[in-house]
């Protein structure tokens, strides 16, 4: 009992201390800056700047999401993404920032909305960048498969295949040899890419005796971390730069 009581007290103290750290505010250079408990891709906290405005208080992300995009050369993606996110949350966006002017009684909600918007903008663009990685692997894969399988590789406009659910899946490539189909699909390290591939492969394997071979092609198995297990449960996994024999063996 004593131990439990002591632990309980300690957890309570830890919880209070952590909660007190989750949101912080400081005044600097004539503006107030609020740090929120959500993280940008660089590991810093989503931060908002508050200033006096004609119609109350301006809550702005001060371009912090834009800077995240600019760091990976995706600054040009900001305007379009910000406009879409801002519209859904009834905010405004310019070329570099997302913001809203509100009376003081709406400040809490405005801080939540602008904070979420800033995070979403960065997250969406970073997710898309991961999909571009998938496209790069796909380009490479197409060249390799042409070299390895020649005329057995189906044309790109025939890269759709139905699973047991009757859902149609678009895959990177399909090879047909000895009456058997083999599906190759390029997978990036991003979770969405892994989950989508896993769902497609499970649906295709559910075709049972009509199921094709399914092969995920990745840059590096080890770079996938724990997500490798999810892919490996669904099908064979090879690395894009492995020798031709590995491609042939996987498709056999």
């Amino acid at each position, binding site marked *: 009992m004593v131990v439990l009581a002591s632990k309980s007290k300690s957890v309570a103290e830890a919880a209070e201390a952590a909660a007190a*750290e989750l949101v*912080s505010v*400081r*005044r*600097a*250079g*004539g*503006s107030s*800056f609020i*740090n929120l408990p959500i*993280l*940008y*891709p*660089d*590991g*810093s*906290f989503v*931060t908002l700047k508050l200033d006096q405005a004609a119609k109350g208080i301006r809550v702005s992300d*001060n*371009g*912090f999401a*834009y*800077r*995240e995009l*600019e*760091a*990976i*050369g*995706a600054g040009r993606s900001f305007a379009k993404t910000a406009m879409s996110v801002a519209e859904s949350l009834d905010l405004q966006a*310019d*070329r*570099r*920032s997302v913001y809203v002017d509100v009376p003081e009684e709406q400040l809490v909600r405005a801080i939540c909305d602008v904070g979420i918007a800033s995070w979403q903008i960065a997250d969406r663009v*970073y997710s898309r*960048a*991961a999909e*571009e990685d998938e496209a790069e692997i796909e380009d490479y894969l197409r060249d390799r498969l042409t070299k390895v399988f020649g005329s057995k590789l189906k044309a790109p406009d025939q890269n759709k295949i139905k699973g047991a659910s009757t859902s149609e899946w678009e895959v990177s490539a399909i090879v047909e040899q000895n009456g058997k189909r083999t599906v190759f699909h390029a997978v990036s*390290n*991003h979770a969405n890419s892994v989950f989508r591939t896993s769902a497609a492969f499970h649906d295709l394997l559910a075709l049972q005796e009509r199921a094709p071979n399914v092969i995920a092609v990745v*840059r*590096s198995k*080890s*770079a996938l971390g724990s997500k490798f297990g999810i892919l490996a449960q669904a099908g064979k996994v090879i690395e894009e730069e492995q020798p031709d024999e590995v491609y042939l063996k996987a498709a056999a």
Partner: protein
Amino acid sequence: MHPLQALAEAEKLISVFPGWSDAEPETDYMWFDAPLEIGGVTEPGFVLHGGCLRYQPERHVVFEVRVSRTLGRRCVPLMRICWRSLKGGHTNPRREGAEFCGVRLGSTHFHTFDQNWHAEGGRMRAGNLRMAWPIEQEPQSFTELRELVGKRFRINNIDVVTVPNWEYRLDL
């Protein structure tokens, strides 16, 4: 050695310091991208980026070494130093065994190349240099920061970077 590792580890020089930009009207951000050279050759798309806010003198300064994969398009940040950041410090992912994993670092920290390099994958880790080390002795001025950046990034003429034209505003 992978080309990105070679860029990170090389002794570098700033080819030309272009000066700090005017403050962006939307964000007050002032910045520069200075081309970097190695052994007398300016590497394409390889720059030192510097950034700060017009009304935040002696705080919220960032220096970052970046390289463009394709000129004018995708960029890969290689290392970064944040000084007195207003963004609440930094947290590393809770990766077991990694140093400073899951803890909150202060507002001055160093996103090193080695921490963010995925050796087996031959690439930078996902995210935007999401791993960092604390900097124990915080630089006390922009000049001290500049010296630290020169040492850690191996940029031997870092003193060509001028002090930004900050403006002072009262905290009312």
